[in-house]
């Protein structure tokens, strides 16, 4: 049982990392970014490339340290590509969630195909750093270090994001635009800049998620699509515009998924989680948390 809870939290934390970027961009720009999964993929391949560079050009003793360079690299690469995406495509689609969904899906296809052209279609493996092998033994169960490391990574990323949003000037601007775009613009906030920064950060976090996923298994061009639907479910359950909703939604879906899968099997687990989400929405149609508005639409 402890093991199930642990696995659930582990899955939930990965979902959280992926869903954070989605929730922010949806809350801020009313844009659904289907290419988010491909930003994860980019983060994963960045890690792969850093690993190759380390193993080829640096002494073997240095190898284990590659991961600490890989995380920021994944963040930066994904953030830059996200910025480019925002600049070329997304900015045309503010406030049009359905259209943005379709256009970014197209972008996702292009990125996937690009990854196939560069790295080949088969999955590639990334070797985890040596110090993450093994696990921590507590009351008879072994908690793998890799999973613990991922949870820690998520917690740190989340706290950094929360600090950024709530304690910095830029973060305050982001929240202002999120709550009332017109008003914030009138008060001199450049919403263009805010959008770009936010989108880059959301993409960067997806990159970190990609780096984390390399620890769990081999990576391929479609690795993002595997997680993206669940991450969207997190946004639906958590509501938009609130970090807390995303946290509760991610952990909830992660834990229920693991528990249901444990009781039944992988596919029935998914069916049950889906049914549970529909039921949940009967009770909370706009998710756990949501900003209220007085306008008609």
């Amino acid at each position, binding site marked *: 049982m402890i093991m199930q809870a642990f696995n659930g939290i582990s899955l939930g934390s990965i979902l959280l990392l992926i869903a954070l970027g989605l929730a922010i961009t949806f809350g801020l720009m009313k844009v659904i970014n289907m290419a988010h999964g491909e930003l994860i993929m980019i983060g994963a391949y960045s890690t792969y490339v850093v690993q190759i560079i380390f193993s080829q050009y640096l002494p073997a003793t240095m190898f284990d340290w590659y991961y600490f360079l890989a995380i920021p690299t994944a963040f930066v690469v994904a953030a830059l590509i996200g910025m480019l995406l925002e600049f070329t495509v997304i900015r045309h689609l503010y406030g049009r969630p359905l259209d943005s969904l379709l256009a970014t899906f197209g972008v996702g296809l*292009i990125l996937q195909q690009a990854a196939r052209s560069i790295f080949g279609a088969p999955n590639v493996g990334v070797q985890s750093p040596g110090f993450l092998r093994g696990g921590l033994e507590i009351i008879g169960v072994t908690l793998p270090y890799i999973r613990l490391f991922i949870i820690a990574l998520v917690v740190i990323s989340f706290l950094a994001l929360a600090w950024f949003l709530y304690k910095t000037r830029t973060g305050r601007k982001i929240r202002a635009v999120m709550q009332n775009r017109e008003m914030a613009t009138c008060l001199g906030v450049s919403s263009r800049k805010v959008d770009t920064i936010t989108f880059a950060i959301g993409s960067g976090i997806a990159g970190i998620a990609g780096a984390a996923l390399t620890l769990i298994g081999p990576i391929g061009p479609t690795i993002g699509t595997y997680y993206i639907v669940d991450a969207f479910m997190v946004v639906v359950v958590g509501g938009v515009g609130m970090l807390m909703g995303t946290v509760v939604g991610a952990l909830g879906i992660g834990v229920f998924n693991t528990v249901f899968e444990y009781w039944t099997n992988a*596919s029935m687990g998914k069916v049950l989680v889906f049914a549970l989400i529909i039921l949940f929405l009967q009770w909370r149609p706009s998710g756990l948390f949501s900003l209220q508005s007085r306008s*008609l639409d």
Partner: protein
Amino acid sequence: MQSFGARLLERKWLFIALILILIIMPFFLSDFRTNLLGRYLAFAILVIGLDLLWGYTGVLSLGHGIFFGLGAYIMAMYLSMESMAGAVPDFMMWNGITELPWFWMVFSNPIVAILGAIMVPMIIATILAFFIFRNRIRDVYFTILTQALVLVTVTLIVSQQNVTGGTNGITGFSTIFGYSLSSPVTQQILYYISIGCLVGVFFLCSLLVNSRFGKALIAIRDGENRLRFSGYDTSMFKVLVFSVSAGIAGLAGMLFVTQVGIISPTMMGIIPSIEMILWVAIGGRGTLIGPVIGALLTNSAKTFFSETYPDFWLYFLGFIFVIIVIFLPGGLMSLTQKLKQRGGKHEKQAVSTEGKETNHSAVG
């Protein structure tokens, strides 16, 4: 803007011309090509329902692959049973199943199978839509949930491989209602049946969107809350339209499987489901005829590209998505519209106050 009367006429003529071309095509194409075109016809039927839902009502479904797939699977089960004459399919035998499960047996009757291929998707769509729309869940959430439905259903079908055929799907049928499926004559008949269904579905949906009901759908797309405050229970309208479009998708799936001879989860997954949306967008949403042309063109292009430059197809598909949404939200039909307007500028001004009926091609 042109007068609606003239436009309806043109759209009607466009459609009639298209149907005539489709009817004579088999005389010019090889059996293989005719069969391919027949599959595209199935898609063309499907997108009419999708356009009713998205183009007119403003509800985007990324889950129509499932309804298409259900129709196809139900027909496939029937065809298998007809061909096996009581025996179980290979994949069941390998898994040690000697008796057909109940949800196969139900469809051993051809009439039940044909009705089921349409009704089962409708029932599932109704249940899902009822629970989502009843509570005014955001439309975007609905879209996301339909995509989750795809993931869940595909996972389920794959995992229950001893009764569904898993990733390989169901295949290996030899006859339909006693006629050999491999004979070119049967395939041609199926091709013409598909044309018949296309005409029927198109006609019904045209009636629907030009009626008062159709105006209500457009009103839902452009101002659902306002319509609610005009005394309409808009949720139920959306449930009905979603259900109808799911039924049309089921019909399309049924026609598809008879002409392709196989149905598997990859044909109903996330990417096929969203590709269907692209066909609608390329042709021009909210026009009915546009999506039909979109489906036929895109699929022909896909076949051409995947035969010659397989790697480029996905790039191409991706770019088309981006370009259509950003630069040409009205699709190909808006291009013809622009051309026409350039041709007849004075007419445009003259009719703006005289037009007899509604003009609702505009895309929000």
